[in-house]
């Protein structure tokens, strides 16, 4: 890859990291600003705060009234969004190269001068409540996943739903917000990534001009909670008025920076990626117990979860699907995978990486992930070699360790009538 030589990185005097990947295919830039704050940094009573911040960051500063951020950016051709996870909050902008200075001005302004206006906070509570109804209350998958996650962890804050519990959404106080802002929206807790049509030295100089004046803060308190070993399978059953049952298995899994990470990813590839994957073929095609299988690894700062989800046809017996799923997972742990399955997973992972690298947005996203979760953006360029190095033995070993029934939480959502 020629990317490694093209990328430039700098650490500002206040500790903020800036990474730039110049690419000139289209006259645009993608920016992502990574804040090391997610629901992992919350406490009972104020869950959802990190996500609420993601909303509040668009709602005005002492220099710009509410609405200015979007109005000014859109008027220069830019669009923006943001997302919050258990571990991070990421702000993203996509804009024509000529808007770079405005975007950095706006991004630094909201890190330095966010306003806390009571009326604005109340209105935004309503928006977040609507988002919660959409993603959780009116959604079988969201409703079940929230409960599975809350059951899988007993000590670690990964048990909190990122969007927040309903009562917490209603009750945040302005002081909660101010304290969270001071602690986490400090330059030393941020990583800014730019990919696209820009000269790297100029981009870094501009980032210095706008962000370096912001004072560093004491580092955020570390999350000290360590989830104790799970001793037995946990099961939960939700009954909801619905037609199609949903089954979710959440297994305890390594953290993002674990050296076995590529093996975890390839294991998921073998199990659920594509029509030729083990679980799709066995459960969807052969036995028709499920209509769709999917999975993902929640890669975070701390050990998290590997999820396997099954959508079942109306009227299906979840127990039959669980039994078939377990038989397949046991077979992988006991007998390993074939060379063809491993090769297939490697090739899918490689193509997946290239597809992301084909866009400036994907480049900014990947650089940020590697810098934040692996401590080094340049590890991105080792990813193909790390994918190629995973052996069949590695896969079987990780399957044995992760796919352990004692360390899983199994949730079923089924029709209220059944």
């Amino acid at each position, binding site marked *: 890859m020629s990317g490694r030589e093209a990328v430039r990185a700098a650490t500002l005097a206040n500790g903020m990291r800036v990474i730039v990947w110049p690419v000139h295919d289209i*006259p645009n830039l993608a920016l992502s600003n990574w804040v090391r704050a997610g629901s992992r940094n919350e406490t009972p009573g104020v869950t959802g705060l990190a996500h609420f911040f993601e909303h509040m960051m668009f709602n005005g500063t002492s220099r710009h009234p509410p609405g200015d951020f979007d109005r000014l950016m859109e008027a220069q051709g830019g669009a923006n969004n943001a997302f919050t996870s258990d571990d991070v909050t990421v702000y993203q902008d996509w804009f024509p190269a000529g808007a770079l200075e405005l975007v950095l001005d706006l991004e630094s302004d909201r890190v330095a001068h966010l306003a806390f206006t009571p009326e604005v906070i109340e209105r935004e509570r309503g928006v977040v409540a*609507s988002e919660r109804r959409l993603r959780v209350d009116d959604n079988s998958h969201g409703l079940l996943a929230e409960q599975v996650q809350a059951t899988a962890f007993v000590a670690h804050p990964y048990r909190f739903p990122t969007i927040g519990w309903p009562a917490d959404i209603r009750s945040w106080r302005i002081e909660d917000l101010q304290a969270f802002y001071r602690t986490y929206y400090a330059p030393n807790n941020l990583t800014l990534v730019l990919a696209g049509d820009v000269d790297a030295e100029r981009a870094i100089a501009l980032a210095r001009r706008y962000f370096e004046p912001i004072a560093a803060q004491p580092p955020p308190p570390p999350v000290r909670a360590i989830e104790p070993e799970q001793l037995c399978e946990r099961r939960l059953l939700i009954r909801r008025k619905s037609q199609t049952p949903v089954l979710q298995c959440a297994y305890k899994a390594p953290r993002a920076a674990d050296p076995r990470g590529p093996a975890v990813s390839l294991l998921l590839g073998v199990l659920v990626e594509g029509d030729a994957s083990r679980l799709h073929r066995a459960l969807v095609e052969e036995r028709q117990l499920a209509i769709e299988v999917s999975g993902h690894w929640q890669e975070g700062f701390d050990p998290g979860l590997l999820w396997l989800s099954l959508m079942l046809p109306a009227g299906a017996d979840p127990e039959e699907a669980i039994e078939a799923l377990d038989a397949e997972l046991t077979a992988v742990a006991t007998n390993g995978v074939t060379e063809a399955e491993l090769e297939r997973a490697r090739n899918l992972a490689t193509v997946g990486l290239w597809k992301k690298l084909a866009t400036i*947005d994907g480049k900014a996203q990947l650089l940020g992930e590697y810098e934040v979760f692996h401590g080094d953006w340049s590890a991105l360029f080792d990813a193909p070699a790390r994918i190629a190095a995973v052996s069949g033995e590695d896969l079987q070993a990780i399957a044995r360790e992760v796919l352990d029934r004692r360390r899983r939480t199994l949730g079923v959502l089924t029709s209220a009538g059944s």
Partner: protein
Amino acid sequence: MTVRVPEHERLSLGNGVTLVLMPRREVPLVAFNAVLRGGALGDPASRPGVASLVAGLLEKGAGERNAYAFADVVEGVGGSFGGGAGPEAITVRGQFLARDQGLMMELLADALLRPMLDQGELEDLAGRHIELIRAAKDSDPAELIGTYGRALLFAGHPYGRPTFGSEASLAGIEREDVQRYYDGHFGADRLILVLAGDIDADLLARSATASFSRWPPASAPVPLPPRPRALAGRRVLLVDFPGSAQTYFWIGNVGVDKRYPRRAALELVNTLFGGRFTSLLNTELRIKSGLSYGARSGFVRGSVPGEFALRSFAQTENTERALRLALRTLARLRAEGVGAEMLESARAYVLGQYPLGLETAADWAGMLGEIELYGLGRSYIDDYPAQLAAVGVQEAQAVIEEAFPSGDSVAIVAIGDASRIRSVVAAFGPLSEMALTDPEFSPAWAAGDELRP
């Protein structure tokens, strides 16, 4: 600096096949986009979903490979391969590593020329599609609201039929329906094949010629949709979703077609009305009131006019307020138009954003397929910035009058808890009602008292 259509080669194979080759070498991937004119317009009126199933079956066994062998070879090299049906075309798309482009062409030729259309695979796929509709009703009813909206708005017109099929129609589709569709609507004159990325253009041109130059034309005429009539007055459909936390709504009428001459002005006005975060709609329903997580609007433009529609959602008890606010915002657009400063902002926004959708080889494969399908020419992209630059307030006003409906003449769909919102939505116009669990997307079809249009 702006985006122009990159250099590419366009060939006609003599039997009607259009072949487009576009080398792009940013990453070692090749993308294909096979567009087969016809799409769901070729479905029998009584059985929507046939084209969609045909598209899905192309990879479920073709040439010498059964469904498993086909998936094994595609995914074994890290490739992707998938078909779907739109109203006017079936599209089959995929990406492979550049080293596998020969294999990609072999698989594509097998899928288009020699699909097995196997009975067992058909039953499995139709069954799964039925369950996927049910699952969407359980987890994302808003995803289906456009299908209900089109059934209401385009009643009697093919655009009103669900391209994916309905639970009821999918259950009735038999192998002979699928075979008849394939025999009638697959053939050289229907195929636009775009190959883009890290390609060996000579190799692929030879391969495509060898595979497709002796393909006979399709036996059926290309299905052409009649021009739909706009709805006069209002119609309201309530889809009962008992216990739902919010009401999801859709408001629409017939809009404009793909060749609408004021496309640039249309894009600018829609950007201002419901196409970006600070749009009038999102400002009212989200930013100022906190009623909803979001509100958007858009146009579907085909060879004849598809729909203009706006959509949003709000907590059940705020259903009336949100619906009134959406209609009042539409009325305000028509009464006040858009000012010069707003227009300037929208122009910068559209110019700033559209290159992001034309970045990869796969993006271009999609766009060139669309340009060929609708006969738009490369000026559709190359002249777009100049067209955007030329739009003034008067043209924007003309577009508002031509393309945006009056709130007095709209189809309204609300998915929500009927026991709590029935009287509220009934106040907006003549009401029909059905359950979210009904196996059709229209109460008339569900009741079986009217032949499905």
